[in-house]
Every structure is written in structure tokens, then in C-alpha cells.
């Protein structure tokens, strides 16, 4: 079905977006060779459980695997793991890696994102981050031995980590330069709900402060803050966001400002596509190019690119979707809530801790959120189509 001489299709980044592209290509009837080059040594796995089931100890690391190697063999996918792409030549259609030069007919860039580090803490052994399976297993081990943790960043990842800490009976302090916790795409509507959960669980909160210095001692780690106070813990977890993995594309000529710029089909240049956390797709409805960091966008972009390469057909633009679980509260979010306008309660009631809410502006629903009401959330999704 395929000849060895054909360069076929190369996917750089063997995670959710890369794998979904490959599955989509095969489902659409693509028969040429598909090679996935991935820096991590693991076959594709799912990151969301890392901060949830894996961190809390409910799951083994291996339970995050997306599919088995037999399944990948059935799809004739060739994985080259532990190989790092270091350069791209768009005109000669070659990817340079740490071990070889790889020619391609078509290339999909799916290198995702890496955690943003806190300056001066890169080499501190008491400072953890959470992006990879190895990070999660390392942090889980550390948590069994510590009594207090400082979490830097009260975003969705920081909030999930803090809520996992309560399972360990660990004392938590959270530091953020923003005045309140932030969930993505929620327009600030959930800041006080998350903050209330922190207070209920005895989390010490330090909002609206900058970190002046970080020092690691033999027994712990100390943060000096701009309000003159200091915070100490046994270890720290830094969760201050992600940056797209585009360094290897620096000399490619592609526009890599905050991710690989693509049209609404994921095309970055002739024969070069991008999908997932690394990609900044143009949205024809809003006429803006934005980078999204969630599972559903990675999956939908992967499906769209695979289909476009084989059939040249575009896929419809969808609304961003994410979920989270914080202290057992199941949060589902579609579209984006508008800041500054009140929430419309569609089902349930916030005081019962179960509701579906939306922001509606000029008759248009911009986003809906389900808080412990998944079924009603799904039923309400149609509001976004009206």
C-alpha cells in the first residue's frame, strides 16, 4: 500500500493533536506513510487526568494512555519517540531533528505547549511544574512526603492542584498577581465561587501580589512578596500558564508570534499545517486568530486538518470547550462568558451548587457553563446555535 521511497506525511508532536490528525487522515482514506516524531518517550497520553485522577492517586500513570500500540499498528502509524525536531525548511520540505533529516510531502506541526517557568526557579529541586506524565508522577511522589505546598498561579491548573492537595491533608497557600482566581473563558464570573472554595478548605490566599524573590533552603522554599509579606512551604508548584513550542521553527519563515499562524483550515504554508495548543487558527466568524489550549480544540483541529489534506474540504468552526473539576465540582464551559454582564441562570440554582448559566448579549448567547449539571448543560448547548 505504501512505498518506502515516498516521504509521506510527517507529524511533529506525538500527543493528542498529532494523533488525532493521523486518525483523521486514515479515516478519510489517506494511504501513504505517516510518521509521528515525539520528544517524549511515551506513546500519546491524555493530560487532563494528570492534575485530577493521577495527582490524587486514583489512577496509575499508564491509565492515561490514549490507545494501545496494537491500535496504532493497525492504522500503520510509525512512531519515532524521544526524537526532537530542531529545524524546518519549508521550501525543500525537510524537518531537521536531533538525529536525522526527515523529508516530507506534507507536514503537521503539533508540538503543543510547555509550561512557563518562574524566573530564577528553573533549577530549584523544590519547584515543580505540571505538564507531562513524568511531571505528574514526580509531583505525586513529592506530595506524599510534604506538609505544606505553595502554589503559584490561581488559574484552572493551579486551582485543580490546590483541590487535589486537600486529599493529602496538605496545607496550601496560593499566590497570584491577579486580584482573584481565574478560569479560562469565564469572564471572571467564577472568581468568587473558586475563592469561596479555597476559604472553605483553609487555603491561604495571596492575590494581587508580585513575587520579589524566591529562595530555596534545606528545609523548604520561601517567596518574598511585593506587599512585604513572605510565604514558605515544603515545596512549590508553579502553574503560570504555557508557551507554544515554536523555538524549533525560528528560522522557518513561518509566523510564530504566540503560536503558528494558520488560516481557518490549519494551513500555515504550502504543505505545512498546524493543530492543537501550538496553533493559532484564524476564526472566520470573529476574524481573529487565537490560540486555544484545550482538548476539544486539539481534537477538532486534528480532525479538520486530516480531512482537509485528503478532501480539501473545510470543517465548520466550533466554539471552544473546556472542563475542570475543583473540589469535586464538575465544571463544563462552552464558548466564552462575557465579562461585565450578569449571568442568566438557565437551569438549577447557584445556591444549590448545581446550575447552568449563560451570558446573553444582544440576544446572542456568547457562552454557557454547567456547574454540577452535565446533562442539562448538554441540553442547553443548542442555545449557542441560535
Amino acid at each position: 500500500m505504501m512505498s518506502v521511497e515516498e516521504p509521506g506525511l510527517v507529524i511533529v508532536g506525538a500527543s493528542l493533536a498529532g494523533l488525532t490528525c493521523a486518525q483523521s487522515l486514515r479515516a478519510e482514506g489517506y494511504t501513504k506513510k505517516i510518521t509521528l516524531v515525539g520528544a517524549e518517550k511515551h506513546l500519546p497520553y491524555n493530560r487532563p487526568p494528570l492534575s485530577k485522577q493521577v495527582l490524587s492517586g486514583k489512577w496509575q500513570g499508564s491509565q492515561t494512555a490514549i490507545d494501545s500500540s496494537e491500535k496504532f499498528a493497525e492504522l500503520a502509524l510509525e512512531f519515532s519517540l524521544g526524537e526532537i525536531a530542531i529545524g524546518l525548511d519549508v521550501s525543500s520540505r525537510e524537518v531537521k531533528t536531533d538525529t536525522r533529516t526527515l523529508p516530507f510531502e506534507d507536514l503537521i506541526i503539533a508540538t503543543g505547549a510547555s509550561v512557563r517557568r518562574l524566573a530564577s526557579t528553573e533549577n530549584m529541586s523544590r519547584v515543580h511544574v505540571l505538564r507531562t506524565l513524568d511531571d505528574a508522577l514526580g509531583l505525586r511522589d513529592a506530595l506524599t512526603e510534604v506538609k505544606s505546598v505553595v502554589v503559584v498561579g490561581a488559574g484552572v491548573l493551579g486551582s485543580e492542584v490546590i483541590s487535589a492537595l486537600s486529599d493529602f491533608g496538605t496545607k496550601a497557600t496560593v499566590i497570584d498577581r491577579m486580584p482573584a482566581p481565574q478560569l479560562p473563558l469565564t469572564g471572571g464570573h467564577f472568581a468568587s465561587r473558586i475563592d469561596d472554595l479555597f476559604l472553605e478548605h483553609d487555603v491561604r490566599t495571596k492575590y494581587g501580589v508580585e513575587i520579589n524573590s524566591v529562595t530555596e533552603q534545606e528545609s523548604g522554599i520561601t517567596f518574598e512578596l511585593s506587599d512585604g509579606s513572605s510565604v514558605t512551604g515544603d515545596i512549590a508548584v508553579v502553574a503560570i500558564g504555557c508557551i507554544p513550542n515554536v523555538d524549533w521553527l525560528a528560522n522557518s519563515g513561518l509566523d510564530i508570534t504566540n503560536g503558528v499562524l494558520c488560516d481557518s483550515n490549519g494551513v500555515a504554508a504550502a504543505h505545512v499545517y498546524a493543530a492543537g495548543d501550538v496553533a493559532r487558527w484564524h476564526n472566520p466568524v470573529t476574524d481573529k486568530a487565537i490560540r486555544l489550549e484545550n482538548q476539544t480544540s486539539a481534537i477538532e483541529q486534528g480532525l479538520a486538518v486530516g480531512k482537509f489534506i485528503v478532501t480539501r474540504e473545510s470543517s465548520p468552526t466550533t466554539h471552544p470547550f473546556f472542563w475542570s473539576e475543583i473540589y469535586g465540582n464538575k465544571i463544563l464551559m462552552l464558548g466564552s462568558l462575557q465579562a461585565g454582564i450578569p449571568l442568566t441562570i438557565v437551569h438549577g440554582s447557584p445556591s444549590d451548587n448545581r446550575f447552568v448559566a449563560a451570558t446573553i448579549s444582544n440576544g446572542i448567547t456568547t457562552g454557557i457553563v454547567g456547574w454540577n449539571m452535565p446533562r442539562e448543560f448538554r441540553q442547553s448547548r443548542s442555545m449557542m446555535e441560535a
Partner: protein
Amino acid sequence: MKIRVDREACIGAGQCALVAGSIFDQDDDGLVVLLTDTPSDEYVAFARKAATLCPAKAIALEE
């Protein structure tokens, strides 16, 4: 084809029920419920679509 769902992984997003409502439903907690674990041939493509789209990767297919 046989379908397996992992209710511990399911986050109740409901993508499965949206694309393949004759195979997947949600219980009151939003967790996935299989209406059948062996879809007839004309529904296999829908099952595959649901498995790919499931953001929690909670749906596995055995051919």
C-alpha cells in the same frame, strides 16, 4: 465491533450523545451510559466519531 466506556474517565461532556445518540446517553450525573455495546454496521462510523471526539478519551472500540 464492541464499545467500552470508562465512567471514571468520563467528564460528562456529552459529545458522544451529540454525535451518536442511538449508542450513547448520559445518566443524571452526566456520565456516559451505553445503549448498546455492539452497534450495527451502519452505526460503526458514528461510534468511531464519538470515540475520537470524546475529550476525556473515555470511549474505546474493539474491532
